[in-house]
């Protein structure tokens, strides 16, 4: 199995984290999704971000082979595809768990203690913000700059479920609830 190396997003402070990702072949389903996405957009550079967003939505991450195909189909250099993929926060260059926990780090959430939530999620799930998948393959976690739910700070979003006024003591329950549903 080939191991490929990427620079993933910088998270928190000054560390640049290099992550080695185990890459498997694209499945037939995934390939089908890709073909559908390519059919939807004009084959030119301005479509790049939208195509990548759709790939991210369907595959849950940007598979390197998918990026190769995007470059070829849109006639964009592969290096430029990579630079766009690493630039925007919406894109993940490593696989994610089934559910993505977003901890809002907006200012309102910060002053009401969001940092503690990040630390606690990291500790409980043994993952890092923006990196890794919990042991059961269920969760990944990332920080978001602001989900625009400042009035309910601190906010945590799991898929489409918003949790308002979360404290460190509620995390266990949230994880349990999300694991079951």
């Amino acid at each position, binding site marked *: 199995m080939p191991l490929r190396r990427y620079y993933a*997003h*910088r*998270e*928190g*402070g*000054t560390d640049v984290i290099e992550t080695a990702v185990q890459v498997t072949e694209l499945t037939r389903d995934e390939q089908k999704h890709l073909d559908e996405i390519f059919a939807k957009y004009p084959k*030119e*550079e*301005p*479509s*790049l*971000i*939208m195509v*990548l*967003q759709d790939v991210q939505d369907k595959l849950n991450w940007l598979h390197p082979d998918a990026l190769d195909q995007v470059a070829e189909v849109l006639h*964009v250099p592969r290096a*430029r595809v990579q*630079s*766009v993929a690493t*630039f*925007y*926060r*919406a*894109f993940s260059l490593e696989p994610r768990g089934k559910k993505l926990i977003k901890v809002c*780090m*907006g*200012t*309102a*959430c*910060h*002053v*009401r*203690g969001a940092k*503690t939530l990040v*630390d*606690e999620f990291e*500790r*409980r799930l043994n993952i890092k913000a923006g990196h890794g998948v919990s042991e059961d393959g269920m969760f990944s976690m990332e920080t*978001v*700059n*602001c*989900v*625009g*739910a*400042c*009035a*309910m*700070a601190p*906010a945590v979003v799991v898929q489409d479920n*918003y*949790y*308002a006024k979360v*404290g*460190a*003591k509620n995390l266990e329950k949230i994880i349990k609830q999300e694991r079951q549903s």
Partner: protein
Amino acid sequence: MSAAKAKTAKFSSPADLTAFAEKAVKKTEKRELEIRVCAGPGCLALGARKIYQEFEEQLEANKSALKKKGLDIKATLSAKCTGCHGMCEAGPVVTMEPSSLFYTHVKPKDVEEIVLKTILEDEIVERLLYHQEPRKGGGQVEHYTDIPFYSLQNRVALRWVGVVDPLSFEDFVAVGGMKAFIKALTEMSPEEVVEEVYQSGLRGRGGAGFSTGRKWQGALRVKKDRVWLICNGDEGDPGAFMDRAIMEGDPYSVIEGMMIGAYALGATDGYLYVRHEYPLAVENLEKAIAKLTEMGLLGENILGTGMTFNLKISRGGGAFVCGESSALMRSLEGKVGEPRAKYVRSVEKGLHDEPTVLNNVETFTCIPRIIEKGAHWFASMGSENSKGTKAFSLVGKVKHTGLIEVPMGRRLREIIYEIGGGILNDRPFKAVQTGGPSGGCLPADKLDLPVDFDTLSRAGSMMGSGGMIVMDDQTCMVDIAKYFINFLIGESCGKCVPCREGLRQVYDLLDKITNGEGVPEDIDKIEKLCHTMEVASLCALGKSAPYPVTSTLLYFKDEYLEHINEKKCRAGVCKKLITYDINKDCIGCLLCKKNCPTEAISGENKKLHVIDQDLCIQCGICYDVCPVDTVDIISGGVIVNRAAETPTKEKAKAAAKS
């Protein structure tokens, strides 16, 4: 197209649309009762959708009884989900019109009671009413018009948010939507529209505050084959959600503003650039665009006048810097969102090197109001150089968190204490942060400043897009500065050195200080770095990046020095500088012991508990769960979490109940 949709066939002239609007107005005039369930972000998170469904079911179940009262579900009674009502703290919120009855903290199980009692028997469900604060006379308030939070506001951009059903075009025209567009199209020349906007004194609501009229005049002068019109919905400032509320709650108004802009500037193509964190805004805007296209209000030959305007949505990729106009345009071109130096303005060469006019969501939403009511009306509100009103998201340690809109020039004190209801738990006020990561923190002695573009800039902060984050004595200002710098490190595009490297160096120094390793010279270093970034960075992000640091250094230097010299964080936030300790008032309830994630707490039932400092990770859970507030935060050798005269949690709760 389905048969039902075929009824709203294309409008072929402005008169068609006016006739449709008149019909819609007549239909709503018949309504005797309108139930508005708030479906803003806050209320949705607390289950507003379910409440609405419950209403539908309950109304259906009591159909015959309602009919006896003369309330027919389709004709004279309507229940709808609207955008944000503003007072998110009280969510989920339900209001009844025309009586303006206001129910707070509504749960799905309360709906049956509301229908049976309030609607059928005209009785008020008292426990759902808004509780006035004891110091303001206490008691319950029935109508939202009597609550200072609402009565002191003046809504222009937000006037239909929370009023209309965001997905219903009929609802939108019934309250007066599209009137301004028709007026512009039939009664005004493009030049007159631009002149009207100029006269109104409207300044861009996105942050920089550039005169919208002047921008438009500039665009009119440029020779062009094609003009792009872009609406900037990439609301990236943390702590701000006005644009989100507008896009989700009143998408048609945003588009109407763009349509008027397109008519005035001769723009044939437009983009709505929406943040990817706002999926509901994208959904609502997409539906609105589809509807308007279907009815011949977008696309080619609009209302038979020959005007063409194609509008598309582009989802942002989640990069703060893309709120900067030139970066946003790069992003629309499918590229990495790096700003460019603006030797050539975008009204001459913007998107695809063609003339481009870009305005913020709130700016566009103000346009129809200005056209409809006239420039003088708009200019009559606000202060000398900042006209009109401004929406703010009032958040942080304030009682009534939510969305507000006030005329420019209101004092900070009025906004925070009258509208916002004061500081959470009545703790002392420390600072208010405005302008997002490019803004600054203002201390208590600046509370009497009027809020407008120029005053805030002079005080070392800025208006920004309208986030207003209130901080109390439990907020550490060094930590806040560090927070914003960390935020900006993640969001700097990395193109120019002062911003990219300067931020990292400043962060390292701030980190050193919050870890208790700072030395007095660090402050000089920070100041030098900040100055360099301010003068040498390429775009506004880098130029304004040092403001959170410089403003806290200006007003809260003593806190920096405390961290450095006494190794003390008076707010009890910086983890390396604090320890938790349980004092002798502990009742031995075992709650903290049970919740401690590292099992650092030992103790038995009804006996004093003790925290093992070697195991403690300063997560603060024990502090949160303690029912009698016996956990102290100690920093620099003193207890820092107890402000003088601060009521304990219990007392605050008891006060809220009474």
